[in-house]
């Protein structure tokens, strides 16, 4: 005989009752009442550890049972089994399997699922939307970290002319070059999703020759052709959303840091793709990939070759140069 607390659902009054199963019905025997409910009409809540078990009756009344052994016996009498999820939750083997599924899901989602989805999605974003986005980002960069360029206009014209003659072809993404300077950023060039390319003064000073600058422009157009910045925006949004839900309210700093780490893995692949695009284009339009290789070497030297492979957003330069040589022979000789 199982003792329970009965609450009628209309008042919070507690009634001690006894429960048992007879003739396919649950019998609820209280001090001043008896109830008889067909087993098909009762709802038995799933067990949750040491918490009291609970049987809900059709009119909203409920019985709370603290005697877990007695409850097991009652359910056996009533021939009520456990649901699949409850059985899964009970055993460590299943918990271990669940752990493996989580890890596999996270790893495969990160390495294959998300890049594939972002890659497929990025070209679908309408040009108008990405142009607006690009303009907004450029405006924000201009107020925050960029200043107008201090290059002589003649130098800017020369760079633009070479790019126009060699890198403007049908079938290539639309691009516009913006010259800027920045005290905060090093020698660098950026490609925004709408086709805005930003070239920083420090990069021009470092690379000196127009061929090498042109090679870097070709590399940035490669990012545009592959929709890399849109792809990275999508990936970044998904990664930070997943991390934020996973770590909950722990700390936004931890999420930001791990997000940065995880995303630098994606940008390595993007750099490789842009390199390949630039190498092929340079082979077609100009003397060959030599200026690109030189540009990479100079950039490497200026950075002091610091930064481990995981942290740097550019993969090891040696690796990249070897790959470029394989895609396009460096045939031509850079003009002085």
């Amino acid at each position, binding site marked *: 005989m199982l003792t329970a607390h009965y*609450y009628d*659902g209309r008042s919070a009054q507690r009634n001690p009752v006894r429960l048992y199963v007879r003739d396919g019905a649950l019998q609820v025997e209280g001090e001043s009442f008896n109830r008889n409910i067909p087993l098909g009409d009762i709802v038995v809540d799933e067990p949750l550890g040491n*918490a009291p078990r609970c049987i809900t009756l059709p009119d909203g009344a409920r019985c709370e049972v603290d005697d877990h052994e007695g409850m097991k016996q009652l359910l056996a009498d009533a021939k009520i089994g456990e649901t699949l999820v409850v059985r899964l*939750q009970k055993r460590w083997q299943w918990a271990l399997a669940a752990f493996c599924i*989580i890890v596999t899901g996270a790893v495969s989602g990160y390495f294959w699922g998300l890049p594939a989805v972002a890659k497929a999605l990025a070209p679908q974003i309408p040009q108008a939307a990405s142009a607006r986005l690009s303009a907004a980002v450029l405006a924000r960069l201009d107020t925050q970290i960029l200043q107008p360029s201090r290059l002589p206009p003649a130098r800017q014209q020369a760079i633009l002319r070479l790019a126009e003659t060699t890198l403007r072809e049908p079938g290539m993404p639309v691009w516009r070059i913006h010259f800027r300077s920045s005290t905060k950023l090093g020698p660098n060039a950026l490609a925004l999703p709408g086709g805005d390319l930003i070239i920083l003064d420090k990069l021009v000073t470092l690379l000196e020759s127009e061929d090498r600058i042109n090679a870097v422009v070709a590399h940035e157009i490669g990012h545009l052709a592959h929709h890399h910045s849109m792809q990275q925006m999508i990936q970044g949004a998904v990664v930070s959303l997943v991390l934020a839900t996973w770590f909950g309210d722990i700390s936004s700093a931890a999420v930001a840091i791990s997000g940065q780490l995880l995303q630098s893995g994606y940008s390595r692949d993007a750099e490789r793709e842009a390199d390949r695009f630039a190498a092929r284009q340079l082979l077609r339009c100009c003397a060959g990939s030599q200026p690109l290789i030189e540009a990479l070497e100079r950039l490497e030297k200026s950075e002091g070759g610091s930064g481990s492979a995981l942290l740097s957003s550019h993969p090891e330069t040696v690796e990249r140069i070897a790959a470029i040589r394989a895609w396009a022979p460096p045939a031509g000789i850079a003009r002085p």
Partner: protein
Amino acid sequence: MSATPITCHYTALGLRPEATAEEIASAYGRAMSRFKRRLSAGDPLPAEHLDTIRAAYRTLSVASARAAYDEARRPATPLGAATEATATTAASAAAPSMATGAPIAPAKGANDPASEFDTSAASVEFRGEGREYLRIWLVNVALSVVTLGIYSAWAKVRREKYFHRNFIVDAAAFDYHGDPRAILVGRILLVVLLGLMSLAENIDPTVHLIASVAAMFAFPWLLVRSMQFRARNTSYRGIRFAFVGTYREALVLYLVHGGLTTITFGLYLPAFLQKQKAFLANRLRFGDSPCTFEAGVAAFYRGLKVPLVLWLLLPVAVLVLVGAASALGPAGGILLIVLIPLSILLVVLLLSLLLIPYIRVVGTNLLWNHTRLGETRFASTQTVRSYLNLVVANWLLVLLTLGFYWPFAQVRLAQYRARNLSVINPEALASAVAAQQAVPAALGDEAIDAFDFDIAL
């Protein structure tokens, strides 16, 4: 029976004779939780100890009884001792049911005239265990991953059920009744809304401005809906809770009082918190019994004076720093470049590691210690130090285990909350009757059920 040393009621609770009613309630809560801790650690204090505490509280919590006791105590006549002795005997009769948590408590209705003065306290107990919840959580997450997030609504219901049903007050469990399908719809809507917001942010400054203003007015609405959803789907002793706060009230709370907090650089924050807690508690119903919140703004300023002073000292410290550096001349400029990021880091750490937990603990204690549900009161005894210890350890362990400590952290937090809460005179809850609107099928307001956003006050 061993001779019980008869102590003064004030000494029994570790109080001075001029203690306020507030201090008496919290001292009683502390003493009770100490007793419970020893009991659950298998090292119980003698039952007489419990009797002494309860007798002391019974006398000191009722103004007239306290006045009489104080009167009797003054000349130190044996009269006081005699009163205590009888009180002790009377209380010991009720003690076993409390100490052992007997499943069936003596049915004491509100119509029982004795109950008005017989203030018993029920232990609040959280029965969840980290290892057990870990299994549930792993299965939840794995199924959510496999179903690409769709199962997460069902996972949420399992989680809520686990934490509600393991939360036991006076031998009765809470329960959660959220419908996973409604939660799923709410989540999809929320994701769409957030997506639109971030799109607006990127498209156009005017569109973004309009969206931000709309969000400002939508937030209180979502908050009220979410409070209604949570309250409606929480039950105790078979009776549902209800939240009857209105959109207008929430709007005033956030736009006016929240705005004042921003304008005054946080000086208004204690008052804002008081309004927030009052909105939360005064609009909550257990069946047909309303909750009332009795703490005023002054209590919040008193409770939060330490963080407030720290907050006020902050700009002074920055000014001193800048002044000292500029006095040093050019070398000071370099010093500033180093010191400014360092001090920003320090401020962020101070805020997240000290001020926010401090405000949370004080807010929780004030909320519980001044809320009354019919004849039932509560005592919350959280301390900033113990809460910080717990939360920081949880953060570190979650980070070290790449998130897999999360279920243990949640269980430890729930255990901490239960350990530091007692319900005084829980028998009075038995008089609550289900409110008309709480009959689930009668209203069937699908719109409300679709909005569950986990926004917490």
